């Protein structure tokens, strides 16, 4: 049986001018015979190299004389030596719808598992190995910035009131793992209203409005216990780690979409970070309820001050955050009451 000689037709580019010339490449045994404008040349087939397959696009055969032949006969092209060894298997995967479907499933699994379990667990693990001392610079800078940019003014609370709160705070933190890292700061702020925050490294700031909104020492301590929860659970570092990981993964996944529309890339990051931030609030609440009960205070104090703050805000415009970073207040109040009754 005589096998049909293999013939490839394509465009020839000599590398000297960008002009296409018709060419024929015939294969006989070990040899490839190139015929271009009545001139023939012979090469060993093994000395040719073919550009990787990509979709159904034409590929290029590199000839030993530096010229190229553009051609679309993929079956023959695949039998010749390939320019890139690593891209061949990838091209094989890319051609199959079955592989694409499995790919969708794997990506969905990685993203969901990573988002709900993997990332929070990894952040917790990494955080436990980084001493809280490293966060101190960050916290000090944050407070300096807030002070210098008029977000905060010096407190106007009387000395003895401050002293009473400090004493209560000292009792709260007395035997906690990070007890020596805490610093309680009082500030007046018209912008923030009744508020309290835990800065990285153990600095807790409480605003004058918050102290005034509380009707008892127990309520102030309930708020401070919540902030202590943020510190003990290392929420600032964990949120830095989790948010940056989310941003990196989102940038990878949406890299193609990002050049089309920025909102598309930003939205998943915002949603993911909001969810983590809510989780931290819930975690800090639960920690606070336990701590309060341990010190013989009732979590109900937390419920009553949250309710009062919510009422106060009802009449005014709500905060400027589109998607609130705090869990719905009714829910928090309910959980505080439930914790108090246990």
């Amino acid at each position, binding site marked *: 049986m005589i096998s049909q000689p293999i013939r490839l037709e394509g465009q020839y*580019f000599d590398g000297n001018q960008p002009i296409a010339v018709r060419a024929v490449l015939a294969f006989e045994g070990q040899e490839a015979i190139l015929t271009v404008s009545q001139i023939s040349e012979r090469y060993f087939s093994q000395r040719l190299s073919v550009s990787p397959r990509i979709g159904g696009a034409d590929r290029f055969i590199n000839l030993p004389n530096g010229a190229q032949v553009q051609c679309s006969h993929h079956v023959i092209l695949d039998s010749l030596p390939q320019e890139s060894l690593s891209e061949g298997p990838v091209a094989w995967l890319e051609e199959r719808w079955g592989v694409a479907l499995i790919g969708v499933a794997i990506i969905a699994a990685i993203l969901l598992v990573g988002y709900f379990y993997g990332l929070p667990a990894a952040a917790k693990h990494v955080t436990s190995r980084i001493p809280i001392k490293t966060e101190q610079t960050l916290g000090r800078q944050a407070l300096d910035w807030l002070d210098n940019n008029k977000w905060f003014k010096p407190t106007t609370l009387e000395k003895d009131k401050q002293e009473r709160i400090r004493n209560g705070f000292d009792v709260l933190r007395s035997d906690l793992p990070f007890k020596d890292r805490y610093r309680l700061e009082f500030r007046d702020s018209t912008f923030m209203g009744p508020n309290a925050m835990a800065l990285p490294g153990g600095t807790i700031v409480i605003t004058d409005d918050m102290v005034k909104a509380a009707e008892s020492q127990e309520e102030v301590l309930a708020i401070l216990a919540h902030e202590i929860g943020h510190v003990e659970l290392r929420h600032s570092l964990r949120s830095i780690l989790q948010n940056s990981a989310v941003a990196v993964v989102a940038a990878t996944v949406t890299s193609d979409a990002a050049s089309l*529309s920025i909102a598309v890339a930003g939205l998943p990051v915002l949603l993911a970070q909001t969810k983590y931030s809510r989780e931290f609030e819930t975690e800090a609440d639960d920690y606070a309820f336990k701590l309060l009960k341990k010190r013989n205070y009732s979590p109900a104090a937390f419920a009553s001050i949250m309710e009062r703050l919510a009422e106060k805000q009802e009449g005014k415009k709500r905060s400027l955050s589109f998607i609130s970073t705090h869990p719905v207040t009714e829910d928090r109040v309910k959980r505080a009451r439930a914790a108090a009754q246990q």
Partner: protein
Amino acid sequence: MAWKCPTCGEVNHSDSMLRCTCGYELDDSVIESTKVTLCPGCLEHNYVDQDSCKKCGLNLKLYRSNPYFDMSSLYEPNSGMTRPSRELPLEFNGSAREYFRIWIVNLCLTLLTAGIFSAWAKVRKKRYFYSHTMLDGTPFQYLGRPLPILKGRVIAATAFSAYYVSSHFFTEVLPYILLAGAVLAPWVIIRSAAFNARYSSFRNMTFRFDGKYLDGLKATCAWVLIPVLLVGIFFKWSGTNAVMAAAFGIFGLLFPWWIRRLKSFIIGHTSYGSKKGEFFATSGQFFKVYLSAGLIFIPVGIITVIMGSTIFSFLKDSQISLLVTAVPGYAGYVLAYAYIKSHGNNLVWNHMRLGRLRFNSTLLARGMAKLYLTNALAIIASLGLMTPWAVMRTLKYRADNLHVLLEGDLSDFHGTETSAVQAAGAELGDFFDLDLSL
């Protein structure tokens, strides 16, 4: 000699016919002012003394004053010369179904390998874009290899982590890191441009970029301003908000000027077949694009304020009304962005030249805005699965709106010893052969 009838606008090609089809008779007094020339961008007939093309807005005055550009080659065919320009067909024929598989497989492998595969993914995607972009019937060829890209990504990731960690935890080091970034920025720009040019090929001839570090530093010196100012602020030379706002304001005003310098630097040092690119756009034209984009925000601002105040008075819930008022804000942003993208692209393409090749880009701001909006909606509604479709239609829209005009013959481009595709591999061992573009 061709002339254009001042009453009906008809172009008459013959000397002998001094009478237009509409009946107008050409008279000696207007014979000079009715002469026409072709716009080098879109081939529209314009009067010879016009400053800019009435169809595509190309600055004809600049072309006339450019010593390299022979306007007489664009005079009308019947004046004795044959029409010098022909359009080389440019087509993007990628398919969303095919690209979807490529996208998903590469994304999956990237996630499974903790990002290492992203270098291969970049090669595969670029290869797809290049080999489905056909000029005059021949696809472009991407020659980049994964390893130099991976090397570039490792360096970029290290630099970014250094910046990120220092900006959060070790702020005393931050000014030095920013300073290093400012010094290295021109180097990053030239390495990326060189990589992209070297590994892009058309008809077995690669592009070439020969910009040097010092040229890059000169071209991008404005870019260095911000880090220097930031450094200054961190060293508390002048830590007030007013100084910072002024610094950013100045930078914002200088931005179009800087963009022009950068484009001119990149195009002027890029060559193909021994022919260097030339760029004629002026800073004024760039300022105009950015200013017009900025002006889009004025009506948007007014609408937002009116809508916002009416809704606030009807609805108690400020969150819903904020969401509603965010809509015109986002629309304004998309419009301004689409305006800059389309007009900026048109400006660059229509004012450059590569040997005997000229380009005519006809992107429309509303076309781009429509594209962005529908893409965003499709991507969100499909949880990202429509991304490949969006990429394909965007590339197709851009290719459909770019016309490549050849005046003369492609044989004017000559390959060199190092421009053939196989010579590209020779540089692989070079340590600085790396890709730093994203």
